[in-house]
């Protein structure tokens, strides 16, 4: 009998592989999608000066408040950041979200002028002129947004501008405490 099973082994291997292939095809997986290395891990270290001179620097302490926090990397020179800006205003005003803004490779004056002109959705904003914090966070460009839960664990990572669907599907449920 065990000898018979041995002869069945190739067929079983095939069945297993085919199952994976069919699964992959049927869920419409995009193999080119890049995952995130930070999701599911503690938020990377943060230690950057505040965007507004004279304010306290931004540190990891921001993630230890016990409340969910959104971290948004932006720049005044970035058009998609402009596009997602109203969504952050709404998150702040309607949902009371705590959003930390980080001006990435952006001159201080220009970033401040940008926020002054459009409105400031951020509870605190920091400056990452050299892009070092971006490196720690696995940033590939701006805008990118991370959702960090009350325990300081990164739960969501959006590359590119947030859109309406992201808000309804994941960001607002996340803020309400539904950890994805």
């Amino acid at each position: 009998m065990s000898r018979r099973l041995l002869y069945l082994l190739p067929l079983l291997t095939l069945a297993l592989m085919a199952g994976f292939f069919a699964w992959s095809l049927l869920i419409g997986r995009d193999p080119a999608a890049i995952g995130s290395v930070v999701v599911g891990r503690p938020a990377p270290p943060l230690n950057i000066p505040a965007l507004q001179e004279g304010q306290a620097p931004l540190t990891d302490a921001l993630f230890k408040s016990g409340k969910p926090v959104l971290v948004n990397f932006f720049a005044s020179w970035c058009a998609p950041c402009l596009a997602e800006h109203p969504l952050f205003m709404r998150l702040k005003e309607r949902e009371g979200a705590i959003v930390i803004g980080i001006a990435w490779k952006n001159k201080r004056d220009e970033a401040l002028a940008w926020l002054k002109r459009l409105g400031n959705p951020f509870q605190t904003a920091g400056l990452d002129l050299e892009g070092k914090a971006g490196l720690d966070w696995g940033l590939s460009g701006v805008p990118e947004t991370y959702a960090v839960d009350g325990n300081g664990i990164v739960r969501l990572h959006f590359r590119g501008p947030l859109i309406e669907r992201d808000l309804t599907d994941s960001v607002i449920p996340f803020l309400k405490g539904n950890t994805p």
Partner: protein
Amino acid sequence: MIPELGHFALILALCVALVQGTLPLFGAARGDARLMALAPTAALTQAFLVILAFLALMQAYVASDFSVANVVANSHSAKPLLYKITGVWGNHEGSMLLWALILSIFGAAVAIFGAELPDSLRSRVLAIQALIGVGFLAFILFTSNPFARLAPAPPDGNGLNPLLQDPGLAFHPPLLYLGYVGFSVTYAFAIAALLEGRVDAAWARWVRPWTLAAWCFLTLGIALGSWWAYYILGWGGFWFWDPVENASLMPWLAGTALLHSAIVVEKRDALKSWTVLLAILAFSLSLLGTFLVRSGVLTSVHAFAQDPARGLYILCFLLAVTGGGLTLYALRAPGLQPGGLFQPLSREGALILNNLLLCTLAATVLLGTLYPLFLDLLTGNKVSVGPPFFNATFVPICLALFAALCVGPFLGWKRAELWPALAHLRIAFAVAVVAALVAAFAIDQSSTLAAVAFGFGVWLIVGTLAELATRLRLGRLPLRESLRRLRNTPRASIGMTISHAALGFVVLGAVATGAWHAELIRTLKPGETVSFAGYDVTLQRVDNVQGANYVAERATLAVTRGGKPFTTLLPERRLFVVQRRQVAETAIQTNLLRDFYATLGEGDANTGWTIRLYDNPLAPWIWLGAALCALGGFVSLSDRRLRIGAPTRRRTVQAAE
């Protein structure tokens, strides 16, 4: 009208294949000679019809018939004639038709050369071939029709992917398919043998030439693809462990194992069920490669027509072919009579070791290729498996294989002594150790693995030649007598010697290029000079050139060595106007011992141009070695004992007793 003729020919071919795939099977089961006699006729008819369809598509390409959607999508009237022709298979639909074409030609070849086969075996083989053909023809007709018309016809086409407009790649797919599809014949033989319930020496003798032919073509196809990647992608490397490359390497490894295990079946009547399994696997891995490349399940630098619907079809087809084959295997293989007995230390034992190692290699490649997919599906984690994985797994197993490779041919059948074999190899061993030490201390102190691998390359060459020398008793007998022995050596043995030694050259080239190349990326303005690997390279000027269907920037790089002119390199960066796509045209100066390799990157007169320079020692040996390896296969194929149809009926009866 011609495209419609092609379309109808294809439909007829499908009908013929349906007949050929069913009636002869019944005939063979019932012993009905008339039904069995249908198979060869049907095979020839089917080949004729598919050739007709293929020629019709080729005509549409050559005449730039832009009422055919496939031509519009992949051709352009300004394209050189060669690329109009190769454009036929430079796309999904056309390449599937090429696959069906080669499949039907192989079927016809079995019909013509297989006249000596027993009727039932031949009709079963042809029927299985036809069933595979049904799968492909239906796939083409129902999901990927190359003859679909477009109305109104546009004035001109979109042009062929510029990367494919290259002589190296023009012939890469046909060779590769000759390999992949060639394994369909061994698959058909394996299934037919399982249906007959008999695997014997005669069967192995019939299968081996087909395996050997498929293997030779696959070797050439892979080598050509690797050469193309080397000079057109402009990254200086020759193998990237890309899923598409891996897809072609897996059937090659399984086919190589099959080639060797079939010898054991032929000579010793052992390893039968294993050999049958390998024959099924070699073709299944070919299909798996096709599935991976075309379904969009994996990403790759070779973006092919990626379409989940087609992916699902190929998956079902893969399941039918592989699943059907393996089910039959699970049912019938336990009943195959075990053959000759042998000690672990014997030629048979060595060939089993060879098979184990080759199959482990194939499994390693399979795992490395599919692991990202499995992990992503199970955990959502994205990883990419690249050279570090394969260097850590593939290379050590290869080294074990190389170590055993030279010893195996010295061992006798049934039982053998290890020490006499090793004694024959002591000179080869000494030379290899010296080579590794020289490599370690003179060339490269940092990478021990490279030096060791280099030593193995030398070991393969010298050890293989030592086997030939022993066979000829070179130095023990007068030279004339040795030469007489050489003439009398079977071509199969000569072929083995050539292929094994050629593998050594591939290893040397790969190790030297991979570990000891020099690389420089620098922005140069015209007139500037840079020192590189003992050469001085001056960017003299960058000109604009007009090609047939592209415009290009061409750099003139003057290379001098010690003040004396060495060569002038003219790398180009071509912009294909129709597709708005840029392709680097590498300039390579080779003296067969090293490649001096330059590519031209982005730039302009103010900031300078990015120039990449590579000095790749022994790089040409990789492809020359691979070509030599295939040549060894062809020499072996010309052996009289293996010539198709040579085994007579009388011998069959004896072997089948």
